[in-house]
């Protein structure tokens, strides 16, 4: 398949592309908008903002989420902040610099025109959010405060205490509820999209399960927008919310939407380590802690079981400071994560033994407390220290924190063009669900920015342009042929969904609930397709996954019925889709014979650092579903860099 990015012509200077693109786009007259129905799946930053904005423009919008309220989408959990090139600190920031940092941070695996647009829109986001009442942190003079985040050399991150995602999401949620009150948006909660309806090659609706009653319901529309978040829970343990899943994206993929770069996943270095087999999720400790904390492990294996206080200074191995003197503890996420893994692989990990090994490193604040005093540390990190203590029962004021990397974000996702349209006409994808802007690695505080840019500022134009373009092709006729829920394709998809549920509920030898299989799948993906990947490991994973899948098919056990609230059934469907996505991740990682960003192939390194191969791999891998999950079809979108010349990321 030829992939058309539909980005503006490269002869147009990059800073004019989005403006010109909008000018060239088709509009839909206000009076006509209410004739068009748009389904938005997801109410996080991307979906919430898109549904509210499209509703406000006058389209007839239906918005779905699986939680009991749109305000609970996973975006709510983001802590650190949101980037914007406002240059309020006068420290040399600009749209161009944010663009440059993002392309470079993404290790030259993103589309330049998209990234530029993201940087450009970042400033509008802050204006929009402040006008909507988002209480960002302020300085004593009453102006907005900023901080530097994730090693950035400018202070461009806006924040609201440690709850930036919460405040941004509540802003979008309130705008959404305002539209619900105005009658332009119908919000359907506790409802899960289980399939996409495609009629004559175009996305025309979805099939959902009402999670309260179990009813399978068809919904038809003229456009479908997926803003369903990332797939980090394929690892079972991650910092994502328990319900985060890939089902909507995966079902769309099975209906023809290409899935791009699934192997680009981000492992965050500072999370609270796993305490036992029962553990259901991992908790992130904000990256900002590395500004003052020092990372170390004992130099000698025999010290690993001792309390940290008993290990002499000379016996402590500050491995980041030693290996990366220029950046020290502030090396980028992937570097910090990989090095924590290496020292634990060497047997130098600390903390309690879980599953026969110690997998944690210390993040020590003793020096910072000595230097700055406890009150300052309390002011900076009090909330985080309290959260750590609630979870582990230990006080970081008295003893070093124990941390270990965990999956946090997925850069891969549904392939979209510059308009955020997938390879199925009429199907759009925004937020973490698409692959677009972060390349192989996402910079801190850039996901919130992308979600809101897509939702508030990109999708409202590009969805309108799609409708306007279709209308202009069919003057005098209905833009979209009328279909009802009785359309044969809708009914067929409905039947498929029902049959799938029946199949899940009637495994031949039911034995274990879905969590059992999810945990086992997670172990495979985490060890073979996690922080460091090898050919052998990935091939091994590709043998293990189908075996485990066969077990799942045979032994899955779901109690209760499908005609009621049944959380086991919900989970089972999600786990089944993770199996197929996990397989594709491994195939993608195996095919990409280079190291870039979050994808580190142990065979492709120089002095322990990632070795990118621009001659052979400067492309997006967009995978097509063929019916056989072991043999997906690879399509390539070549990437060219006219503004930011590819260079080596080096932090030594």
């Amino acid at each position: 398949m030829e992939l058309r990015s539909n980005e503006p012509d490269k002869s147009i200077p990059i800073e004019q592309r989005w403006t010109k693109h909008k000018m060239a786009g088709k509009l839909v007259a206000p009076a006509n908008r209410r004739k068009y129905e748009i389904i938005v799946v997801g109410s996080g930053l991307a979906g919430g903002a898109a549904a509210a904005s499209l509703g406000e423009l006058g389209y007839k919008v239906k918005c779905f989420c699986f939680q009991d309220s749109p305000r609970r989408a996973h975006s709510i959990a983001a802590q650190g902040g949101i980037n914007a090139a406002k240059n309020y600190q006068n420290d040399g920031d600009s749209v161009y610099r944010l663009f440059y940092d993002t392309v470079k941070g993404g290790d030259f695996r993103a589309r330049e025109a998209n990234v530029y647009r993201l940087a450009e829109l970042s400033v509008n986001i802050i204006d929009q959010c402040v006008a909507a009442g988002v209480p960002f942190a302020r300085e004593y003079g009453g102006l907005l405060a900023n901080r530097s985040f994730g090693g950035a050399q400018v202070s461009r991150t806006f924040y609201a205490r440690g709850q930036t995602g919460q405040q941004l999401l509540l802003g979008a949620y309130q705008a959404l509820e305002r539209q619900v009150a105005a009658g332009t948006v119908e919000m359907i909660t506790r409802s899960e999209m289980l399939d996409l309806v495609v009629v004559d090659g175009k996305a025309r609706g979805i099939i959902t399960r009402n999670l309260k009653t179990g009813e399978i319901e068809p919904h038809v529309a003229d456009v479908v927008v997926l803003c369903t978040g990332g797939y980090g829970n394929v690892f079972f343990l991650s910092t994502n919310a328990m319900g985060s899943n890939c089902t909507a994206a995966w079902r769309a993929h099975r209906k023809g939407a290409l899935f791009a770069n699934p192997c680009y996943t981000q492992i965050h270095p500072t999370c609270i380590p796993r305490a036992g087999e029962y553990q259901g999720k991992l908790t992130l400790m904000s990256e900002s802690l590395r500004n003052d904390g020092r990372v170390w492990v004992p130099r000698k294996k025999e010290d690993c079981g001792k309390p940290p206080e008993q290990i002499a200074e000379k016996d402590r191995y500050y491995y980041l400071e030693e290996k990366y003197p220029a950046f020290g503890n502030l090396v980028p996420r992937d570097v910090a994560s990989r090095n924590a893994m290496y020292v634990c692989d060497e047997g130098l990990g600390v903390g309690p033994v879980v599953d026969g090994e110690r997998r944690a490193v210390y993040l020590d604040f003793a020096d910072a407390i000595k230097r700055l005093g406890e009150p300052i540390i309390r002011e900076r990190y009090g909330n985080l220290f309290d959260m750590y203590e609630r979870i582990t029962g230990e006080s970081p004021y008295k003893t070093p924190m124990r941390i270990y990397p965990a999956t946090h974000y997925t850069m891969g996702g549904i392939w979209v063009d510059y308009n955020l349209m997938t390879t199925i006409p009429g199907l759009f994808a925004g937020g973490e669900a698409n692959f677009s802007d972060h390349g192989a690695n996402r910079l801190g505080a850039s996901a919130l920015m992308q979600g809101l840019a897509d939702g508030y500022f990109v999708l409202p134009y590009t969805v309108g342009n799609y409708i306007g373009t279709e209308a202009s092709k069919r003057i005098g006729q209905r833009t979209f042929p009328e279909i009802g829920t009785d359309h044969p394709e809708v009914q067929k998809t409905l039947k498929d969904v029902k049959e799938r549920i029946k199949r899940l509920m009637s495994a031949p030898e039911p034995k274990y609930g879905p969590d059992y299989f999810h945990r086992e799948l997670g172990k495979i993906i985490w060890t073979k397709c996690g922080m460091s990947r090898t050919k052998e490991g990935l091939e091994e994973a590709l043998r293990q996954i189908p075996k485990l899948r066969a077990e799942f098919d045979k032994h899955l056990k779901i109690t209760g019925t499908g005609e009621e609230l049944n959380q086991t059934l919900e989970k089972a469907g999600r786990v089944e889709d993770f199996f197929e996505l996990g397989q594709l991740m491994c195939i993608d990682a195996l095919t990409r014979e280079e190291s870039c960003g979050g994808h580190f192939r142990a065979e492709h390194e120089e002095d322990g650092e990632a070795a990118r191969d621009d001659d052979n791999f400067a492309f997006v891998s967009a995978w097509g579903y063929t019916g056989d999950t072991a043999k997906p079809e690879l399509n390539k979108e070549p990437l060219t860099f006219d503004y930011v010349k590819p260079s080596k990321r080096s932090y030594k």
Partner: protein
Amino acid sequence: MSTFNITLHVWRQKSPTAQGKFEDYKVEADEHMSFLEMLDVVNEDLIEKGKEPIAFDHDCREGICGMCGMVINGEAHGPQKLTTTCQLHMRQFKNGPFDIWIEPFRAAGFPLVKDLVVDRSGFDRIIQAGGYISIRTGAPLDANATPIPKAVSDMAMDAAECIGCGACVAACPNASASLFTAAKITHLGLLPQGQAERPERARNMVTAMDNEGFGSCTNHGECESACPKGISVDFIARMNRDFVKASATAYDRAAKSDGD
């Protein structure tokens, strides 16, 4: 690692109309488990035994989405202050009590769905009544055009921290949603951007709260002590002032137009 034995008494109710009752489960708890991980273990075991797991709401497990919530030994979100159910850890029970009673958030405004799951959509409808600032997506003023004193902005943030979990309602003897409603009215009412709609907002949101079947506030203050985010009851006084002022303004306006 230390483990101990507990007995759970959990409210089980198959559907809104079915008869509910407490059922007992014996569990070996690890002190490092979270309360919900302990329930996960119970549930996996129930499934393997062919029984239906306990239904409960949860998502982020980080104390921020507001989805979890149950009454544990008579207290909304359990014994630890400023802590949601998902952040509660079993070490809190290491020295007893070893009998733990678990019930849903019960309130007229929160109809029961199943087991520990209740319907809190009334909260969304209260927000629909006015919990927003009416601006269009587009090109508002530059974000720094209106400085806001730090103290004002910080107080707005104190109110905005509400996670909408409903513990305040579950803890209130009148099942009032005053703390939830007041937190939003305060957040938006403190900011300069929120002034234009301030009277209508207070009036409409308070009316919506009453219509949803939540009780009225009689100053017990249980809401504040159950609130995992420590939202202050002082905000209820602010809401009441805004409400009275809004009603007076509406009255004045009506009187004036009558006179013309």
